[in-house]
């Protein structure tokens, strides 16, 4: 019997070797990528080869994965490879955005080269939530005026040209007013660092990706499909549905300091766009938000503000003009005009030198709106490329008072019934 021990042990070792070889053969074949920007080989594609390129401005052969996402570039074991990723799935979260998206050649350049995206986004009112905080604290008598002094995080902008150069961090636990405490507890859900509210319609990332990474929504009329997901994409073609992951989802009840989601079940774009109580014109629901609202309005201009109206300045007249004036235009003569870069990032329109565009009162190019030879205007939807033609007010039968350009005045005649 004992003589077979050696044979049995030899067979067990042989089996062990076979198992080891089998296990080794199951390892995926490493797929190497050496991005030109880093010149450091990385193996993320071994598992993520099926992931679509995130955007045409971030080609994977140039950027790779690690320069934005972090992570262990050589590891082929998921837990280790992902252990040092910045911001988990979202490297654009504001806690890590500087390391992920920053750099003077990337998104923390200067206003002069129009690459100061991180500075603008992190100081914007959507990031600081300073307006809502100031409003609530003023309403409940905690601060004497509406000037913002607190944001969801502390931030200093010494060179701010607004009246505010710094915000301290809002800490609800240090507030004495119970309503302000409750606001802090229940209502800090709509700024760019906040996790989204529950519900598939609210799913979004934080930071830059809250807007620039589209949520893939299911057909909302099909209630069996309640899942929605973010996809691996960065885009400037931002649909209204992305804005609606925060906006138009319901209202904050100031008595209970809770969020009350809208109760209707939208069945199409007309009903989905705004809450039932809202008034709007046809262009306000047929177009996407970004077709009118500029990058500065949405992402800020690098200054700190107390309230949305301090930064949001577009009015109907920006595109339509008034009875007395046509909208402002600019003919492209400089090949470095910002309009060319914006059109390159979202090629819904083929801009050429000599083209005449609409511009805003602050000279921001409305690069997706052309002046046509017949004096009408041609707009291409940034999110869907849809072409619209519209006329100026001047010379029309519009009954407007040129001084009253707030949307409420226009809505008196042009609102859509649903």
């Amino acid at each position: 019997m004992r003589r077979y021990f050696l044979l049995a042990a030899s067979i067990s070792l042989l089996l062990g070797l076979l198992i080891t070889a089998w296990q080794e053969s199951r390892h995926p074949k490493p797929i190497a990528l050496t991005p030109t920007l880093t010149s450091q080989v990385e193996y993320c594609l071994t598992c993520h080869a099926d992931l679509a390129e995130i955007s045409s401005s971030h080609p994977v052969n140039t950027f790779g994965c690690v320069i934005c996402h972090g992570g262990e570039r050589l590891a082929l074991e998921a837990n280790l490879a992902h252990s040092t990723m910045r911001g988990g799935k979202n490297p654009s979260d504001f806690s890590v955005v500087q390391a992920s998206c920053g750099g003077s050649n990337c998104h923390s350049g200067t206003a002069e080269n129009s690459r100061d995206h991180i500075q603008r986004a992190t100081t914007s009112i959507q990031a600081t939530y300073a307006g809502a905080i100031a409003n609530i604290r003023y309403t409940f008598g905690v601060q004497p005026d509406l000037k913002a002094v607190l944001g969801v995080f502390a931030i200093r902008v010494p060179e701010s040209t607004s009246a505010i150069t710094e915000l301290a961090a809002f800490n609800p636990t240090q507030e004495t007013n119970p309503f302000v405490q409750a606001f802090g507890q229940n209502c800090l859900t709509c700024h760019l660092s906040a996790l989204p509210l529950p519900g598939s319609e609210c799913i979004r990332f934080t930071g830059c990706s809250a807007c620039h990474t589209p949520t893939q929504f299911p057909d909302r009329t099909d209630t069996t499909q309640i899942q929605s997901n973010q996809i691996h994409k960065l885009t400037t073609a931002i649909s209204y549905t992305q804005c609606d992951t925060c906006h138009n989802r319901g209202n904050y009840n100031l008595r209970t300091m809770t969020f009350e989601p809208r109760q209707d079940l939208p069945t199409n774009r007309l009903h989905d766009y705004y809450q039932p109580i809202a008034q709007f014109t046809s262009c306000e629901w047929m177009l996407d938000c970004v077709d009118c609202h500029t990058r500065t309005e949405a992402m800020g201009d690098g200054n700190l503000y107390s309230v949305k109206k301090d930064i949001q300045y577009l009015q109907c007249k920006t595109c339509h003009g008034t009875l007395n004036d046509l909208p402002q235009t600019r003919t492209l003569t400089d090949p470095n005009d910002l309009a060319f870069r914006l059109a390159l990032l979202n090629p819904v329109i083929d801009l050429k030198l000599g083209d005449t565009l609409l511009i805003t009162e602050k000279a921001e190019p409305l690069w997706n709106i052309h002046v046509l030879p017949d004096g009408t205007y041609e707009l291409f939807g940034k999110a869907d490329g849809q072409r619209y033609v519209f006329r100026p007010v001047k010379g029309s039968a519009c009954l407007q008072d040129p001084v009253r350009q707030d949307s409420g005045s226009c809505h008196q005649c042009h609102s859509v019934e649903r």
Partner: protein
Amino acid sequence: MRPSFFHHLHPPTIPARQARLRYTLAAGGLAVFLVLILGITGILEIFYYIPTPTEAGNSIQTLTFLVPFGGLVRNLHFWSAQFLVIVSIVHPLRVILTGAYAPPRQFNYLLGMGLLVLAILLDFSGYVLRWDEGIRWALVTGTNLLKSIPLIGNALYTILVGGTQPGLATLIRFYGWHIFGMTLAAGILVAWHIFRLRRDGGIAVPPPPLREDQTRITRFELLRREILAMLLASTALLLLSTFAPAPLAAPITASAPASETARAPWFFLWVQQMLKLGNPFFWGVVVPLAVLVLFSLIPYIFPKPVKPELGRWFPKSNRIAQGVALFILLSIITLTLLALLPAS
């Protein structure tokens, strides 16, 4: 056939009891086998490991994930090292519980204790060579313990760490100690230990006139058993290395916060637990050294085992030494288990 070191260790015949598994537990032989595995896998690792703080982690990841069978080599090295520490504890424990350190084997017992210390230090230095977040706490705490030693602590720290905090000099020093300094010392001690083993008459059994069992086995039977043990150990190592990879974490970066669940390597968990009691010099240096000294002095300060009782477990003549050894071992196991409990 020309006599050789192999023949020196494998005489034509030996008493059967000297090679009985339930007496020897094959601990010494396994230790030698593990040292061989560690030597071979260690040499292979040298070709890929880069001992700098910025490259150590990357080079280990390259070896582990990208070099064909590199992960297997690293896992074999890791598991062999852990088993070496285990058999290096089991071996002297067997010696104490069978009274096998009886004269003339006291000196070889001391050589063995030296090897135990080297096995632990080699394991710890190898662990540090990972230079990843998993080892940072133990590296910082372990080296800081040196500073707690009065008078010479700071000098010892500087000698080991090569500066005021762990860095490139530290890694190079640990690397040097690991692949050269301690490995050389261990190699010499291993050879000396097994040379002494034979010179002291092989594994402890009663002298021929007092032996109840006079059976002898041939060197071929001894070799057969050694091969059997090696085959079984190799299988176990292979399977463990295939299915339980050696730990690896992200490389140390200055910005990363220290983990709240930081732990010492398993063989120092008992020291980590004692450090919670207060004075680091006493609990982290004095007590562990006292345990080592006490174990080393067992052949000299406790009643000596009598020769007729050799070759079997728990002889009556050295019960005190057995009791002390078991008490200390159980204390160390208890402290280790306490350290493994999640922090409340």
